[in-house]
Structure formats: C-alpha cells, structure tokens
C-alpha cells in the first residue's frame, strides 16, 4: 500500500521536518509523542545509525510498538543498554554523549528559553505544569537542542512566567558566559514554519515556511515581533515515502499525527 503525501496534517509536517533535521545525527535524547515518531522516522530515512536515548535509562532503544511513555517496557526489550538514571544523566548526558535533544514546553520565548513549571506565579499558580523532569539539565548539557512545538500566542510569549530550561537566556554569548557545555537551541520546528537562531543575538527567526503558510500567519501566532531571516525558504512537503512510514509503520493508530 502506498500513501499519497497530499492531504498531510500539520502534525505530520512537524514530524517529517523534525526527522529531516536529524540527518547525520548519532545520538538523540527523545521524549514521547511527536519527538518519538520523528526520531523513529529519522532512523528509517536520514539517520540510519541514530541511537535513541531516553531519560528513563535506555540507550539504543528499538521500540517494537509506539511507546506510550518514556518509561514504556517496549523501550527496554531489544535495547543496546539499560542503566540507572544516575548513570544516564551523569555518564551519557553530562559526559557530553548526547548530540541532539528534542524538547518542548508550555511557553517558549525569543531566545528559546522554556517554561514547563507554572502559568501565573509559583506560589499561587493559575496552572501547575509538570515541572522540569530532566529538561533543565538536558537543555544545559546536550550538544544541541531542537524544539518541537505548535505555534500560538499563548506558548510563544514575550516573557516566560517561569524559566525552567535555559535556551540562549538573554541572547548573544550568554550561554558561554554561563559555562554551559552545550550550544543550546538551534531549531524550533512548528506546525507552520521552521525557526532558527542563526544571528548574533541568538534570537528566534523565521527561516522556512511550510507549504501554504504565509508570513503573516506565523507572525500573528507569536507573542512578540518575531524576526525574519534574510532569506526564507519553503519547507519541502512530506514525500510519499515519509508519509508511508509515518502512517503505516510508526503511528498506525494515528495517536500523535492528527
């Protein structure tokens, strides 16, 4: 059965764009949901040697079913190595063995700083979010960070309610001054566009629009006056092969690609 690429959803475009961004990457720190499908798609396409690392203590996972959480037992069976969490964070992450980490959050600002802790004040939260998990140290120690998030005024905000995981802090060479081992956010892959930080201020900028999306669509969904790269391209639409893998092999029940 062949799946035609026409009629793909915005989530499928995100998955495909994220997978392509992993070209040539050796080790990736994975979360559940879209990042997980993106990494498995990359393993089947642009990065056949990609090793999946989960904060639950798994290196080289080859999940036989779509994992429902980062602690799913399918990640253990057939993995290269399963270790304690102190070893995972100390010997893999802090040792510098994670090439790329995929992160997301409830709020992101122009420098790629993330909030996953609270909306409102910490003492009297309007919404209590999950908190850091491993994201804080992952954002500091992974060599590169890619974000996968849907665009929207409530998530792409001028000012975070709480800084849980650092991006480029207040921009420029802030990470170097802080002594962070990793280079921080490189890409933000959204449902409408791809954003990067390739300027001296390390400020988020629109670099590629997905097919059918115009610049104003993106700007209207960001809570500050977002920069536009000198040259912006169009994200290539998902290919038939990519769509076949996503829909038939990786997420046949459509749990994450709707």
């Amino acid at each position, binding site marked *: 059965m062949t799946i035609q690429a026409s009629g793909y959803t915005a989530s499928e475009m995100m998955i495909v764009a994220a997978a392509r961004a992993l070209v040539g990457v050796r080790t990736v720190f994975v979360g559940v949901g879209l990042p997980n499908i993106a990494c498995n798609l990359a393993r089947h396409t642009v990065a056949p040697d990609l090793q999946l690392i989960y904060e*639950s203590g798994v290196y080289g996972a080859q999940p036989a079913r779509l994992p429902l959480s*980062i602690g799913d037992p399918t990640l253990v069976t057939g993995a290269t190595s399963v270790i304690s969490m102190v070893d995972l964070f100390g010997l893999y992450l802090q040792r510098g063995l994670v090439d790329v980490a995929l992160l997301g959050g409830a709020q992101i600002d122009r420098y790629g700083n993330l909030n996953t802790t609270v909306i409102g004040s910490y003492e009297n939260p309007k*919404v209590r979010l999950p*908190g850091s998990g491993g994201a804080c140290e992952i954002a*500091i120690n992974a060599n590169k960070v890619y974000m996968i998030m849907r665009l929207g005024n409530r998530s792409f905000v001028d000012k975070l309610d709480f800084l849980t995981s650092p991006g480029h802090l207040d921009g420029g060479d802030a990470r170097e001054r802080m002594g962070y081992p990793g280079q921080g956010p490189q890409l933000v892959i959204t449902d409408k566009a791809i954003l990067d930080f390739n300027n001296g201020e390390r400020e988020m900028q629109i670099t590629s629009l997905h097919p059918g999306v115009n610049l104003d669509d993106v700007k209207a969904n960001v809570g500050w006056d977002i920069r536009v790269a000198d040259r912006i391209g169009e994200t290539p639409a998902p290919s038939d092969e990519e769509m076949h893998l996503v829909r038939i092999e990786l997420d046949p029940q459509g749990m994450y690609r709707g």
Partner: protein
Amino acid sequence: MTNKQVSMQEAIATYVRDGMSLAIEGFTAFICFAAGHEIIRQQRKDLTLIRMTPDLIYDQMIAACVASKLVFSYLGNPGVGSLHCIRRALEKSIPCPLEIEEYSHYGMVGRYMAGAMRMPFFPLRSYVGTDMPKVNPDIRWVDSPYTGETIAIVPPLNPDVAIIHVQRADAEGNSQLWGLLGCQKEVAFAASKVIVVVEEIVDESVIRADPNRTLIPGLIVDAVVHEPYGAHPSYVQGYYDRDNDFYLSWDEVSREQDKTEAWLNEWVYGVKSRTEYLDKVGETKLRTLNPGTAPAPSIDYGAYA
C-alpha cells in the same frame, strides 16, 4: 538467613508512621500501588511523600490526605497529561493543602546518591540561569577548590522509609531487578528503612546463580513482602505490561474530588487486601497485560573450586 517476610499490612503498620518521609520509587515501572493503597487504608497522616514522578499512586494518596508535603521532579500522568488531584491540592488546597519541594530529575537522583553515600551534597551541571533555585533555597552553589568553577549542588535525601518493588528476592531481601532501574538501588541505600515488595520469592540459590543482577542486598532490607501484581496498574518488566487503559481512565476519574473519593471507596477502602483488589480487577484484565517472552541468554560465571 533471616526470614524477613511479612504481609503488606504488617510492613506498613510496623514501618510507616504519621509524619514520616516516605519514598515509593520506580520510574514508570515497579510502582508499588499495593503499598500506597495499604497506607491509605491505614489512614496515615502528614507524610512527606518523595518520588521523582509522583504518578497516579501519589495522586491517589494525596487525594486521600495522607500527605502534607511532596518532593518531586516531574508532576504528570506519563503519556496522558496532568495529575489532577495533586493540582487540585496545589491550586485550591482541596482536599488538603500541600507543600512542595521541587528539583529536576538529575537533582533528585543526585539527592538519593548523596544520601546513599552519606555525603553532604551532590554536584551537577544544572539549574544555573534558571528560576528553579529562586523557588528552592536548597539548590545551592559551590566553587571547585581545583578550578574555581561554580557548580550547582543539591542536599542528600535520606527518606525514613523506602518501598521498592522488584521482580524477585530471597526471604532475606537480596533483590534482583531488570528493566528500567530508575533510582531503585540509590533510594534503597539512602533510606533508613527499606521494604522490598516482590513478584516472586525465590530460593537463595537463584540469587547466587546470577549475582550481577542483585542490586539491593538483604543487608539493607528490613521487610520483604510477597505481592504479585503489586505494581498494577504500573508494570513489572517481563511479568506484566502497564495497564494503559487505567492511566487513561484516571484522567477522567481524578478531575473531580467527589469522583476520586468514590473511586477510593470502591478500590482502596472497599477492599481488605491486594488479593481482593486483584479479584476485582479480574483475571481477564490481568491476562491482557501478559507480555510475550524475550528471555536473555544465560551467561557463564565459571566454577572456580
């Protein structure tokens, strides 16, 4: 060999007292719901609950008002969404107010490590530049006496009691586990008292046949409880899968305190023991959680007589 086997009821009655700090650990796997439910049934109060990922078990315990404080690093229903009972306690003090102390994952495992090794702190590359130290004064800094570099530190964590679910142990508590190890070993060495809950009690010879797999020695174990399916609806690698339907349904049940209390009345207060709970879950359901088999080939340790 000392036989440390006791019932769950006796283990909780003996070791878990009002006002204590308690860690029921297990990262998605090995979460001992059987122990949590027995603590609710025995109506403990004012506990400090410690877990990296509070998960549904602490959501249930906090809805039952057994705790006044929570120490954690990720507050979510894994793969599903929010922990509504804990959010209700934090946002609205329903049914009881809850104090929190919050770290990142590496901070929590580091705290267990320092506690286990009886060291004054654990250094880690985290927290700098974030808001986390602003809301937790126990996240502090130290300058390396070798390089002068400033590094984040977290304090040791030594729970009064740790409850650790594993695949198997002998009657003395020499425990073997495989799958996601989480911080089961570290929290066991950190705690003052350790209750090990097992799917199977095995002979000492089974343990001695594969010593690399013994992560928790009976030396630090105070009680051994034999409670098959004691981690349901979480899972035990190779024994049963996670009951994902339950994790999804809890999202609905837990949205209102009334519905949550009705659930507790039926599934916790309404049953005397884990056996009654499992009868209620039913064999049909449990059978759907059986994984296929994927045995590891055995290795040869060699005989050196």
